[in-house]
Structures are given as C-alpha cells and as structure tokens.
C-alpha cells in the first residue's frame, strides 16, 4: 500500500461531521468499492449506496423480449455484450434464445458487426444497443461507417439511456441522498460541468472519481468534507481522464445520430428525456421499439428498484442469496457484473455480510 491511500484511510477514520448517505452512481464504482473492501473503512454514520448506473440493470424486460424475438428470427443474428446474456425477459433470456436455436453472438465492440455484415450480406445483424453516454458515441460512429460502406443489413435495437436526467429524477424523488460519486466513464464524455446544474438545484455535492481504490477514497472524503462544510460544489478528482467540458466530439456524435426521448428504467419507471432514439434520418437502421412503454410488473418480492435508488441494500431483499443468486438471478441487479446485488453476492457472500 502506498502512502497516499494510507493518508486517505486515516482522514476518513477521523471524519467527525454529520451522518451521510452517499450514492455511487456507477456499477464500476460499486464493483471497485467491494473489491477493495472500502465500506469497511467508512466512519460510523456514513453509508455508500448503489445507484442506477448499470445499464443492464435498468433495461426493461420487454426490451429483452424484443432481443429474444430478433435472435429467433430467420437469417438474423443478435449481437450483444456478454453481460446481457442472462438478463431475464418475460419468458427467457438471450442464453435461452441461443439454446432454442437463436443466433446470439457476443461482441466486444459494436464495430465487430461491420465485418460480419459485409461478409454475410444474406443475414441481418441486429445490435442490442444498450448503455449510457459512454457507449452511445460508438453506435453513432458505427452508423457513419455503415452508411459509408453502404451496408443494408445492420440494425440497431436501441435502449440507450442518459445519466443526468436520471439523477435529476432521483434527487427529486429521494431526498435522503447527501452526495454523489459521479460516474467516471460517463463523465469522460459529458464533462464534470454536466453535474453543476444538479448540484445547484438540489444543493448536493458531486465528486467525479476514477476507479482505483485511491481515487474512490479521495472522492468519498471530498463529499464528506463538502457536507461537513455545507458546500455543494462539483469537484473533478479524475482530471487525467475527465475535462470540465467533456469530449465535445463524442457529445456531437451522439446528437448527430440520436435525439432525446422518454425512457422506461427497470425498477424506476418512465423518466422524461432520459432515453436516446435514432433520428428520423437513420430510421432505416432502427428496429422499432418503444423504450418508454410501461414494462410488465417486476417479479413479486424483487427489490431491485429500491436498491438502485439507494433505499435498501441488496441483503434487505428476502430473495437475496436464497431464490436470487448469480446462478439463478431473478432481478436484473443480480445478473450483471456491474449490478449491485451481484457485486454484494460476489464479495460479501450469500448472507450479504462482511467477509
């Protein structure tokens, strides 16, 4: 252990301000907090709760159903990221669609689809375009290439979401959140200034942090110091990757291809302006899907919706570690490597207690 984390651990232990519930918005932060055992280092009265920043966790069941349908269609391949495979839809998941003979292929990058589509013009390639502002620019660049190459057999089945409207909704509905560890990757695209209007409107501090233990410790400490001093600034503690203005080219690429729409967040409901849909001029690439359509009710007893708004911990759910495990996930938060329930289970065990 280097000296810097040592000092941060000591400063955290010495915190004597008011109690605080801080939300880490992004699943990658949640995973790192658990991998490094950072909750053990929090002073009494300070809690970290997980937010809605795992794209897989907030994707609606009806979207999964639409993906399964695409995978089972003739001469069609569904391309998805690996963590989508086990997200339950109404009747089955993508792994189940593959077992039924559907063509489901994993992609490491959306760009993988270009060669496939060019090599197999007789097949249609449907890309499960899920994610936040971090992945949206890649789909925009993909469509640029598809247009340039004249590919007619690529489609996007889009359920992209945007973080700032979701945080706005959370702050309006969850008054008990005292500060936010802003998502690192999203901030690379949006810039740290993107959170200033929220910090002003709701008087809550934001800290943009990277993903290693030291960066997260520094972020938590910054939020606590701001809270103690009654400040609500946006501090960028990840300046090597995040600029105040973000990445204007990536933001422009999103705007060129996508327009905002209302979107359904699994466990939360419809959040106005929190989705992205292809602009009319790209309609030829779109698999029709209404991302704002009300979803079916969650499985009775599943508390994923409360977990991702910071109301309860995964272990407070009666199904956690019993009916719902990483091998037999019921709620989406147990499926994804970035989902809060899956992370708790992996690093704290089936009882959700500390190791």
């Amino acid at each position, binding site marked *: *252990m280097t000296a810097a*984390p040592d000092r941060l*651990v000591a400063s955290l232990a010495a915190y004597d301000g008011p109690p605080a519930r801080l939300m880490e918005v992004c699943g990658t932060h949640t995973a790192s907090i*658990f*991998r*490094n*055992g*950072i909750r*053990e*280092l929090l002073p009494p009265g300070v809690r970290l709760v997980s937010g809605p920043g795992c794209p897989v966790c907030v994707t609606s069941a009806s979207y999964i159903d639409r993906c399964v349908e695409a995978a089972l269609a003739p001469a069609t391949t569904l391309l998805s990221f*690996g*963590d989508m*495979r*086990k997200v339950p839809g109404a009747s089955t998941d993508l*792994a189940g669609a*593959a*077992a*039924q003979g559907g063509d489901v292929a994993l992609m*490491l990058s959306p760009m993988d689809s270009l060669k496939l589509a060019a090599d197999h013009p007789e097949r249609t390639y449907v890309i499960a375009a899920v994610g936040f502002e971090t992945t949206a620019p890649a789909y925009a660049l993909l469509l640029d290439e598809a247009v340039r190459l004249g590919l007619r057999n690529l489609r996007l089945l889009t359920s992209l979401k945007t973080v700032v409207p979701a945080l706005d909704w959370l702050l309006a509905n969850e008054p008990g959140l005292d500060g936010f560890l802003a998502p690192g990757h999203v901030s690379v695209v949006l810039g740290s200034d993107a959170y200033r209007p929220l910090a002003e409107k709701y008087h809550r501090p934001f800290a943009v942090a990277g993903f290693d*233990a030291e960066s997260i410790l520094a972020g938590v400490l910054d939020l606590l110091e701001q809270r103690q001093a009654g400040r609500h600034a946006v501090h960028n503690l990840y300046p090597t990757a995040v600029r105040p203005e973000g990445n204007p080219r990536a933001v422009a690429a999103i705007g060129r291809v996508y327009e905002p729409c209302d979107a359904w967040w699994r466990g939360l409901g419809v959040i106005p302006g929190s989705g992205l849909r292809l602009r009319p001029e790209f309609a030829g690439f779109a698999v029709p899907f209404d991302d704002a359509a009300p979803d079916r009710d969650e499985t009775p007893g599943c508390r994923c919706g409360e977990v991702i708004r910071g109301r309860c911990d995964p272990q407070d759910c009666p199904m956690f570690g019993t009916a719902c495990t*990483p*091998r037999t996930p019921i709620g989406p938060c147990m499926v994804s*490597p*970035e989902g809060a329930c899956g992370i708790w*289970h*992996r*690093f*704290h*065990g089936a009882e959700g207690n*500390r*190791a």
Partner: protein
Amino acid sequence: MSARRDDAIRMVHGAGGQESAALIGELFASRLSNDVLARMEDAAVLPVPGAAGSELAFTTDSFVVTPYRFLGGTIGSLAVCGTVNDLLMMGARPLWLTAAFILEEGLPVADLEEVVDGMARTAREADVRIVAGDTKVIGARAGTPGLYITTSGLGVREPGRPAPSAACARPGDVLLVSGPVGDHHACILAARSGMDLPVPSDCAPLVGPVDALLASGVDVRAMRDVTRGGLATISGEIAASSRCGLLFDEASIPVRPEVRALCDLLGLDPMVMGCEGRFVAVVPAADEEKALAALRSHPLSAGAVRVGCFEERPGVRMRTALGTTRFVEALSGEGLPRIC
C-alpha cells in the same frame, strides 16, 4: 439446480465454474458415483492388482479450444499437457496416453499435421508415449472446420512417493502458485477477438516443476493444476475438500501487467482466468521457503510465490491491498467458453 430436466445444456455448463460443478455433482456423480469417482480429484488413483505399494493414476480430458492454434501452442500440445498435468497433480509419474480425434469435414491436413507435431513434441518433453488412438470425422458445421481431441493418461505412483490430495490441506498450511496466472486464458481471448496481445499461452507439461518440488522432501499436502475456473475456483475446491477456509493476499497474486490490462479492459477477474501450465501446491508453513526454492529452481516455475494461507474458518477470502477483507467467489457464468 443448474440443469433441470426441461432445460437444455448451455455453454456455461462447460465453463468450469459453479454451473459445471452443479452439472457434474447433480447429473453425473449421482448416477455414476463410486468410492473412487467420489473423491473428485484430478485423476483416479487405483491399486495395482498384485503389486503391493505401487498405485496407478488414471484420467481423461477432452479439448475443444478455438482457435486450435494460438501463441505458444496448439490444441495438440494442450491435449498432452492437460492430461499429463492431471496425473502429476496426484504425485504420479505420467507414462502412457491415448488420443482420440474428432475431425470436422474440411479441416486442412496441413493444420492437422501441425497439431499432431505439437502433440509429439510435447509428449517427448513430458517423457510420455502415446500408445493407442482413434479417429472419427464428422460433417461440416457452421464456421471454420475444427477438431476435438480426447486424451486419457495412465501414470504410476511409486511406493514411498508423497500422495497429495485435494482433501489434505490443513489450517496453517500455505498456498503456493507456480507462476503468473491467466496467461492462457488471456492469450485465447485475445486470439478470438483479434486483439494483439504479446503474451503466449503458459501451456506446458509440469513434469520438471513437480519433480523438483517432490524431490525437495517437502510434505506436499495437495496439488492442482490451475485450469478452467482459475486460481479462485481451484483453490476454493481444495479448501472445500479439506473442510477449511483460505485467505488470499491480494498484493501477492502474480498477474502479468499485459494480462491485468486486458482484464481491466474487458471486466474480467484474473482470479478466475484459466492457465494450462501453472499449478498450486499446499505445503505446511514451515516448508514454505524450501518449497519455493525448489520450484524456483525450474524455469517453468521460476515465478512461484505464496498467495495465501488456509485457516479454520470456512470460506475463501481476500485480504485487499487496503487491509480490508472480502469474499472470493468461484467462477460463475461462462468466463470464456472453450479455452481448452
């Protein structure tokens, strides 16, 4: 239950993690079990009728890796290493192998030659002979034609040799690993996704390192080769078989920087990444230095280090670099299909 009767087999059932263990335990073991199979070791150790003292070690393994050629080996060298290493882990000297080939229609003969040449070379390195074989050809399937190899191996454990078993770790014992973990997994993953990763597979027969360790006079309680499931899963299985717990020390886990970077990029955990030329050994704490010196005397295990110690409290945990503690889960899900 991971595989109900109305389910179909999924790729995850072959990934070597919790789902594979459930399939083996609930479907195979419940139907086929006997006192030898029930030990669930890397190889069965059997008495030789009429020869007091010596024991036979017997095992089998199938290889379905894609691509069948990769940096540092082929499916042929892998098929020898996997079976030889399983015999070695029981303290046996590998002697004879059989090889059964399933070839897909359209497989280039030049590729098959390369694979079999690799097998022959690795068998010479491991000082084993391939003494029987079988060949079948099946119709072309979608994609590039490939091949599958099943090898079975027979070895002898001579009287007086240590008899390591996954059930013999005790609280206080230390866990050693013979070198950096995850190289083979990362190499295959990079090859499959067209990434340029300058890390060859660690695929190797472990005859030399195991001989060095056993010859050092150390009381070797258990050995396992770190294949599918990786360090976390394999070591966790030793802890579970031995009815004790295990505490890893995060700072000591050897992972090459290139492999670490690939894992960070793809969200993988090196603790569950497979190897084909690494093994763990459990020795009493008092023997640690002697065991490490013996391992480090051989080039294939020059990077041997202690990564954890066994304790009374059940479960597998990690002491993090910050001094905090968390659970270490066995591989769950696919990780990466078909790495061996």
